[in-house]
């Protein structure tokens, strides 16, 4: 790389590093332990971890088949579906949350039937958190995995077929293991997006301690009254996320 490119690169790195340093210096280190062990904080942290993992799981179960279908062609239908899949990425999360309310809210499209027939109410529940975060995170998973699938040499699947393997067997033993790096990277990106989600969660699932108040929401509430505590909470979330991302550093990029 040409030597002078290091200057804009360094500026970019600083862009990320400086706010972190700002947070670290403003943090109330003396109160950190009492905040970490506070019930509300632990509730929020646990909820964040549980919901983001559930979200990642949903992304895998639903996103993998979608990505597989999308990767198989470029016709008008697939292009249209791909555009819709990308929309949550460009929509402000609050708008995403609003859209979800209009579908799953008690008096709306699907939510109405769910409430009438099964007494189920998705908004204001942990399921609502998972739905909201899955909505914003799945596009990242689908795009990453689709790219991986398109890089998959279809001739291997053909070879497997000539050897007598049916489509599901081929998918399970040949395709999946080969695209596993893309799937892992996609899951990681989706998880990171899900755990940090705020707008869609607070709009759709609301904020109730222990049930729907995830860490980002807890930070928001604390910020209104005790900014120092909010900084501390942010750093806790940051530390947890950074640890996970570091431990899974080999999965970041779909390398061979």
């Amino acid at each position: 790389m040409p030597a002078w490119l290091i200057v804009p690169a360094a500026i970019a790195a600083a862009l990320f590093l400086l706010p972190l340093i700002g947070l670290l210096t403003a943090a109330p280190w003396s109160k950190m332990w009492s905040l970490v062990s506070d019930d509300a904080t632990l509730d929020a942290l646990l909820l964040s971890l549980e919901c983001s993992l559930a979200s990642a799981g949903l992304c895998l179960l639903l996103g993998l088949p979608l990505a597989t279908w999308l990767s198989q062609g470029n016709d008008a239908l697939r292009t249209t579906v791909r555009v819709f899949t990308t929309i949550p990425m460009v929509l402000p999360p609050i708008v995403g949350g609003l859209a979800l309310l209009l579908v799953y809210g008690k008096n709306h499209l699907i939510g109405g039937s769910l409430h009438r027939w099964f007494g189920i109410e998705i908004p204001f529940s942990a399921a609502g958190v998972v739905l909201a975060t899955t909505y914003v995170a799945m596009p990242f998973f689908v795009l990453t995995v689709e790219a991986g699938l398109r890089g998959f040499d279809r001739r291997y699947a053909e070879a497997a077929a000539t050897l007598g393997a049916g489509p599901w067997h081929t998918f399970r033993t040949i395709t999946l293991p080969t695209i596993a790096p893309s799937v892992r990277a996609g899951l990681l990106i989706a998880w990171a997006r899900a755990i940090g989600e705020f707008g869609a969660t607070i709009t759709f699932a609301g904020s109730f301690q222990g049930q729907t108040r995830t860490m980002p929401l807890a930070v928001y509430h604390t910020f209104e009254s005790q900014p120092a505590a909010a900084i501390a909470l942010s750093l806790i979330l940051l530390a947890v996320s950074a640890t996970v991302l570091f431990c899974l550093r080999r999965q970041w990029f779909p390398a061979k």
Partner: protein
Amino acid sequence: MVPREMNIDANFTATRGSLNLDVRLQVGNNETLALLGPNGAGKSTVLRILAGLHDIESGQISLDSTLVDGPEAVFVPPEQRNVGMMFQDHLLFPHLRLIDNVAFGLASKGIKKKVARAVAREWLGRINMGDYHDARPSEISGGQAQRVALARALAIKPQLLLLDEPLAAADATARLELRRTIQAQLKSFSGSCVLVAHDIDDALALADRIAVLENGRIVQTGTIDELGARPASRYVADLIGLNCFRGMCSGNALRMANGAEVILATTHDGPAIATVHPRAVALFREKPAGSPRNVFQAPVVAVERALDCIRVRLGGDLPIVAEVTESAVGELGLDQGGDVWAAVKATEFRVAPS
């Protein structure tokens, strides 16, 4: 003659990209058919169609008296045809060890892993790769990988074996060993085999019959002798190594488009192809006297040293290749270029209406 018990009976049309195929071929049990032809003729496509990786537009294909591809909805997918295929780039599964690669077909049919692995180990032994059973495809050479690919295809005991240019990816030294391996395995293989070859030597070594595919159509099928006796096209003639002349015949003279003429021993009328073996072309420094009806002067364009003879290419109105000995090159000063006299007996020409 074509054996009565047919194993492959194919008669179909298909399209791949801009290529239109119209193919009819039959292969018997225990028979190997080599498919030859120029690049882009559709040879690989024919194999893919037989394997079930590509659909036909009309006609039908029967493997072992079972219709596998036919009108309307009849189409048996590749995993249900008893076909084993070996691809040009071996296509060994990169994430599986060699033993699991070879065992793959059996495992996907439900055979227990232990049993499948045992069979695989046996096959690896047969192709002299027993020591590498634990290796990954990326750790062995191209030639070795091709042998393993062959074993992988044979391990499922297919009735039809398809080899797509099996020797193409191997380097010169590996080719010989690979060819020997394929020869040995084909001997003990009881089904039919269709292999795509790129040159006549591979076809000769491995196949019983040859089919030549040009532009999506089979122009000729038969043994090497049948092809050599009456090549149906210039490509076939070139393949066998013959000189080929195409033109309009009247009486016993064949006139080419550029006006040059060759005198034949028989009379014909109408368009025809005349072939003559390079061995039948004699070269002289001075104009020879004698019985040959075709005597002419031509410039030496090239002198090619082949394995066991020298081929001298002559230019001019009647481009022709002559086969001579090494000493002749020296005596006639062929290396110096310049003009030389050529003589071909009319009786040496074989003619066929085109």
